[in-house]
């Protein structure tokens, strides 16, 4: 392992600044916000997946003491601007509306908004609302949704095909796919959902006299929320303020601004009152975004030596009814990244996003991660089919570091990654060869089913689309020398107040305790991309670096003027600006800051007063990180229960700002992957009724299902300043196929096969026959 020399702060596992307030119960989450006169909201939702609204009777609800308003589509929809949650990603198709007016398109679709003096009263009133829906057959099975005899989810669109991208199949690929050593498989990943422990929520205050709208919201992206609320309510964007404060997890679900938050903002604007809506867990499960509902038909062609010669993927993603973000956006990347870190001369793809009468699809930690799931599961299936070990298949096909940069067959340029190094490090840590020996012994002598699985991937960080790849930092030095940094991020567990302070302290040569980060507030920070897409270290980190460079240059110029020294001879060490090699000739950082603000006659002629800078950073279109996951499992033949024995992640996110936080992010992602592979399944019946609406039915991993995770680090610095790479999502990308492959490996001992998740005991039991 070769890690770069850590700095004073960058590269250190600095303890988090956020922790003391969160550990003592003094965090400020959205439900902790109390505004005088605040009213409470609850939604009445559809209990039918598809059908016509025949009658909505709100009279009894309106008559209840303490009820302020009971709003229907007639009350709100005519006053709404566009409901599109973001202008960053175009969302073709889905005809978004605040409240369902004449028909419903999934169970959980909001129909009525109740506003009352307390949440208890709002729930009482909601029970008095009478809604009659004439149910119609619903579109639930995504693989049947494009058939001619299936109803149309959005009649306005006339088709259930939401988006499609297809590359032509070159004749040479056609020939390969019909030739020898071809392996075909179909894999299905079940619908699940991000499940942040804090549900969604918003408080919206509208002050009619001032015309200002002020919202507190559980969001990853306060600036986009501000703009979405401005569009919906008609309040000009500069009069809208969105604050995040502490956010109890998001994992993508809170990146774009969902429907309910926009409806509450619109209602606050119409009523001129302050409204609070806190989602309950049932609502979060049935009506926040779903994810991961994918199917892919995959084909690999090989030469006689087991080298990949051609690849094809035909992918379908379930977009649900009203997706949040891009429709088909996940699928495009599933297709483009399918061959991942392996050499493949020629490939083609088709991806389709399909409407169904279910909760809309949205971002979830690695939204396109099915490319890794499908590919890595395909690799193991192919290896078994052509008679080589899955590790050997990977060794033969992985792009060697010496052959980088490598252009994927879909045209994407891959560089500055280390898939072969992380593969070798992961198999060494887990003891792959020794495990194979033990696996054979345990099966031969005891009949036990042990298995080992790998998941190797490369992950692109978002830089391709404006403004996902851009962030602005304002670095402001106070007259005391202490520094306040404003970032447009929306931290929700990543520890941004800690890591960005590490970067700024390092860059300015001052103490970490003298830097504070202000973020999560659209009015005191410059427009920013929010927090998501594994972007903070690279994009926010380098916007901080760029602003610090300007501040540092100015501080050194001031010090040079004061000391009558040449700026080039000065450096900042431990908050002293000193002549390099002569530390006794120095001026304190704090003294320079004081003079810059309060004794301005001592500044160089013509220099602007003050010491602060605003700077942006735009990430390159592609910057890649990579990792290899390896795990071992035992499958209980009597019960079908899978137990994870060991779990190893070898990752390369370039230079780490805070290794403790990197490993924490990896661990969190891995365990979400464990949940998604073994336990979590959002189930609809054939009529579109949700069956998993509590934590007793929708199963999350707990302490007793999760192994201790072991880490290896490889460091290939990114070509951007600081050398960092994205790493927030990767844990959730590599883990599902690693676990699936380990289970498939164990089952292969007795000739059993699997092709879909979750790998619950009944699925394993069925596979074992």
């Amino acid at each position, binding site marked *: 392992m070769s890690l770069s020399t850590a700095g004073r702060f960058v590269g250190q596992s600095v303890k988090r600044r956020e922790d003391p307030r969160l550990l003592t*119960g*003094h965090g400020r989450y959205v439900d902790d916000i109390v505004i005088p006169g605040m009213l409470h909201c609850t939604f009445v939702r559809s209990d039918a997946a598809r059908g016509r609204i025949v009658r909505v009777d709100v009279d009894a609800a309106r008559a209840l003491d303490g009820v302020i308003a009971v709003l229907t589509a007639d009350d709100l929809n005519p006053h709404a601007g566009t409901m599109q949650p973001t202008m960053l990603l175009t969302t073709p198709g889905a005809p978004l509306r605040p409240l369902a007016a004449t028909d419903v398109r999934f169970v959980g679709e909001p129909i009525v908004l109740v506003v009352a003096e307390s949440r208890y009263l709002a729930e009482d009133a909601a029970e008095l609302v009478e809604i009659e829906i004439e149910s119609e057959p619903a579109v639930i099975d995504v693989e049947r949704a494009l058939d001619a005899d299936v109803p149309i989810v959005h009649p306005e669109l006339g088709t259930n095909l939401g988006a499609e991208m297809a590359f032509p199949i070159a004749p040479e690929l056609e020939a390969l796919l019909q030739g020898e050593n071809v392996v075909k498989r179909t894999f299905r990943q079940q619908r699940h959902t991000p*499940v942040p422990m804090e549900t969604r929520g918003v408080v919206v205050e509208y002050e009619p006299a001032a015309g200002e709208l002020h919202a507190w919201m559980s969001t990853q992206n306060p600036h986009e929320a501000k703009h979405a609320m401005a569009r919906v309510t008609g309040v000009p964007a500069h009069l809208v303020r969105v604050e995040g404060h502490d956010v109890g997890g998001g994992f993508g679900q809170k990146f774009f601004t969902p429907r309910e938050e926009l409806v509450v903002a619109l209602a606050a604007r119409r009523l001129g009152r302050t409204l609070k809506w806190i989602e309950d867990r049932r609502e979060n499960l049935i009506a926040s975004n779903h994810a991961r509902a994918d199917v892919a038909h995959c084909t690999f062609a090989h030469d006689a030596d087991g080298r990949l010669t051609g690849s094809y993927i035909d992918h379908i993603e379930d977009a649900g009814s009203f997706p949040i973000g891009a429709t088909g956006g996940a699928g495009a990347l599933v297709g483009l990244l399918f061959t991942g870190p392996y050499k493949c001369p020629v490939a083609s793809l088709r991806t389709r996003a399909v409407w169904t009468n279910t909760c809309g699809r949205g971002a979830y930690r690695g939204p396109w991660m099915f490319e890794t799931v499908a590919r890595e599961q395909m690799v193991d299936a192919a290896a078994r089919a052509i008679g080589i070990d899955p590790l050997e298949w990977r060794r033969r096909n992985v792009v060697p570091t010496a052959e980088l940069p490598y252009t994927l067959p879909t045209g994407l340029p891959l560089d500055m990654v280390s898939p072969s190094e992380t593969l070798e490090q992961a198999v060494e840590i887990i003891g792959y060869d020794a495990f194979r020996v033990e696996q054979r012994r345990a099966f031969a002598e005891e009949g036990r089913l042990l298995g080992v699985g790998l998941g190797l991937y490369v992950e692109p960080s978002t830089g391709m689309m404006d403004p996902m790849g851009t962030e602005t930092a304002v670095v402001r030095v106070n007259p005391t020398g202490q520094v306040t940094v404003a970032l447009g991020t929306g931290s929700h567990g990543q520890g941004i107040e800690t890591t960005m302070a590490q970067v700024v302290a390092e860059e300015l040569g001052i103490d970490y305790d003298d830097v504070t980060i202000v973020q999560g507030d659209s009015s005191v920070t410059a427009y920013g991309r929010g927090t998501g897409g594994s972007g903070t270290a690279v994009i926010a980190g380098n916007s901080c670096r760029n602003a610090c460079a300007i501040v540092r240059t100015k501080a050194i110029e001031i010090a040079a003027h004061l000391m009558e020294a040449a700026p080039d001879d000065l450096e900042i060490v431990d908050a002293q600006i000193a002549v390099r090699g002569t530390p006794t000739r120095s001026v304190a950082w704090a003294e320079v800051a004081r003079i810059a603000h309060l004794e301005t006659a001592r500044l160089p002629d013509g220099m602007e007063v003050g010491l602060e800078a605003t700077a942006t950073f735009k990430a390159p279109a592609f910057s890649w990180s990579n990792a290899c996951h390896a795990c071992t499992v035992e499958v209980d033949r009597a019960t079908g229960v899978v137990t994870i024995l060991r779990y190893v992640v070898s990752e390369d996110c370039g230079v780490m700002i805070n290794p403790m936080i990197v490993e924490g992010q990896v*661990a969190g992602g891995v365990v*979400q992957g464990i949940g998604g592979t073994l336990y979590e399944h959002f189930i609809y019946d054939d009529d579109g009724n949700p069956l998993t609406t509590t934590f007793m039915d929708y199963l999350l991993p707990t302490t*007793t299902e999760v192994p201790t995770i072991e880490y290896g680090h490889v460091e290939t610095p990114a070509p951007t300043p600081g050398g960092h790479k994205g790493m927030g999502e990767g844990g959730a990308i590599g883990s599902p196929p690693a676990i699936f492959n380990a289970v498939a490996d164990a089952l292969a001992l007795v000739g059993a096969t699997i092709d879909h998740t979750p790998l619950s005991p009944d699925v394993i039991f069925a596979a074992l026959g």
Partner: protein
Amino acid sequence: MLPVEMTVNGGRRRGVVEPRRTLADYLREDCALTGTHLGCEHGVCGACTVFLDGEAVRSCLLFAVQADGSEVTTIEGLGGADGALSPVQDAFREEHGLQCGFCTPGFVVSVTALLAENSAPSETEVREALSGNLCRCTGYQGIVRAVQRAAEESR
């Protein structure tokens, strides 16, 4: 409406509540102790765990009137004066046992209860004792380490 009187974090609190008001809502809204969090409101996630007469309970499954005459300790009552962290809280910080922090108050209460009962739990005992608290961020890695650290340091 019914009168309730209880000791909360060492201080006497009198209130008048609807019989249906949950203990969690009473603590969060009437007592302004917002450190107790509601993650599911059906007793599974454990974020709302508080001490009731020395026992860790789910405040979302209790009515405030059920705590009448009792002694309640919330997350705000576990640390020292001036924001000092308790040994369990400090161990969570040292071992990165929290990320978003939403489930954290429930975990800290559950761990404090565990260590009061068993000052040297094995890893298996730790995992079983905490299997009724859900965390979505940490993968439980730092949490399990934090319990072991807090146990070691209290010896």
